[in-house]
Each structure stands twice: as C-alpha cells, then as structure tokens.
C-alpha cells in the first residue's frame, strides 16, 4: 500500500515529527511504500541541516535523511512555509527538496492513505 505523510511540527518542540518518522519506518519495514513525506508549517524545520542535538539524543534531521537514502523516500518541504521560516537551499539537509504545496495535494491523490502528524 502507498502511504502519504504530512508533518506539521518541527523537531524537538513536539513529538509529531518523531511519531511520523517511526510510523514511516514501520511502514517501510513492512514492505509498504511511502509515496511522499510533506513538511508543512514548522515541519519545514526538520530539514535544517545545521541542527545539532545533544550527543545522547536522537537526531531527527539525520534520521529523515538516512530514511530517504535507504528507501528512496521523497521528502518535500513546502516552499511557502520554508521561505517564511528561513529554510533555504543553503541549509537544506540531504534527501530533502523544496517544492510547492501542490505536492501535498498530489500525495493525497496518489497515496492510498494520507496521514497527518501535528501539534
């Protein structure tokens, strides 16, 4: 089955992004496909490669990048939300790309199930 995932919050402040990551990983490990993970609102902060969590804590930005590499997951950051929040190509972590909100709607259309993680 093809899943589409929407992430509305950044790493740290809320658990939303952690939950989304663990859901995506579990789906992939079960042999499902993730059609796309779309990052909206503060969710765009998941793509900030300057992020440096404490050594004994998880590093969500790196975890998303690794997931993208291992499973070829399409990680899309909303361009409008990203501009406002200062997430630009210069600081974009590997595996993420910046694109329009239409990519979220397309995910809703193409995926068999679309699920939201937010505040």
């Amino acid at each position, binding site marked *: 089955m093809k899943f589409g995932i929407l992430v*509305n919050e950044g790493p740290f402040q809320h658990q939303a992004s952690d939950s989304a990551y663990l859901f995506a990983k579990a789906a992939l490990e079960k042999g499902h496909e993730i059609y796309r993970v779309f990052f909206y609102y503060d969710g765009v902060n998941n793509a900030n490669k300057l992020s440096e969590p404490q050594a004994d804590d998880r590093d969500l930005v790196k975890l998303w990048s690794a997931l993208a590499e291992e499973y070829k997951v399409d990680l899309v950051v909303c361009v*409008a939300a990203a501009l406002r929040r200062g997430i630009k190509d210069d600081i974009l972590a590997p595996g993420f790309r910046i694109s329009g909100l*239409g*990519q979220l*709607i397309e995910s809703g*259309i193409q995926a068999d199930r679309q699920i*939201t993680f937010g505040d």
Partner: protein
Amino acid sequence: MEEEWDEGGPEVVKRFMYVNRKAPYGTVYALEMLEKVLIAAAFEQDVHVVFMDDGVYQLKKEQETKAINMKNFSPTFRALEGYDVEKLYVEKESLEARGLTVDDLVVPVEVLSSEELKGLMDKQEVILTA
C-alpha cells in the same frame, strides 16, 4: 506549478476534507490551512471545509488585526467561492457553545449537527486537520 499538473494529473478526483478546529491568530494553523484549501481547489478536487470547535471563530465577522500587527486573512474566506470552494460546513454544537449564529459569520455556510457531520466525514478519502 505546471509540472505538478503533469505529474499528479487533475483527472483523479478525490473527496478532500479540511477540518478547522483552531482559533485564528493565536496560532498560524488557520491561515496556512486556507492555502491548502486553495491548492486543492486548483487541482480540481472535491473539497469540503469543516469548521468546528474554535475553528468557527475563523469565520467571525469584523476582524480588525491592525493593532496586533498581523495580516487579516478573513477576506480570503469570501474569495473561496471564486475558486469553486463552496462546501463549507459549520458544526451546530460548536457554534452554539460560543453563543454565535450564522449571522456572525463572513460567508454563507451549511450548519450541520455533529450527528450529520459523522456521516459526511466517513465518506472522505483524504482528511487534513490542523
């Protein structure tokens, strides 16, 4: 956006529902949700917009945001019709709990009881909340 049309293809039409449960201005969710509604309309999807809980406050008339330095986005609701977004629903119970009536709202809406809303939600294929 043209390449998106090519990829996604507007020929598939799904029932999209947007559920607005947050008050305006205190958080950004109301504003950015509107952007998602407009895009879905541009993709010619079957768009349903529900206002319940504090989301009904998004539609309150006479919003004057100058003194808090924020953009007043309530006129955008009046523009929805021009994008063929006409299925706007307000939950009756939420409206009443806040002492509001449809006359307090900036756009015409269909008022549904939670009981009626149940049936409508259950038919949706994509539900986006914030």
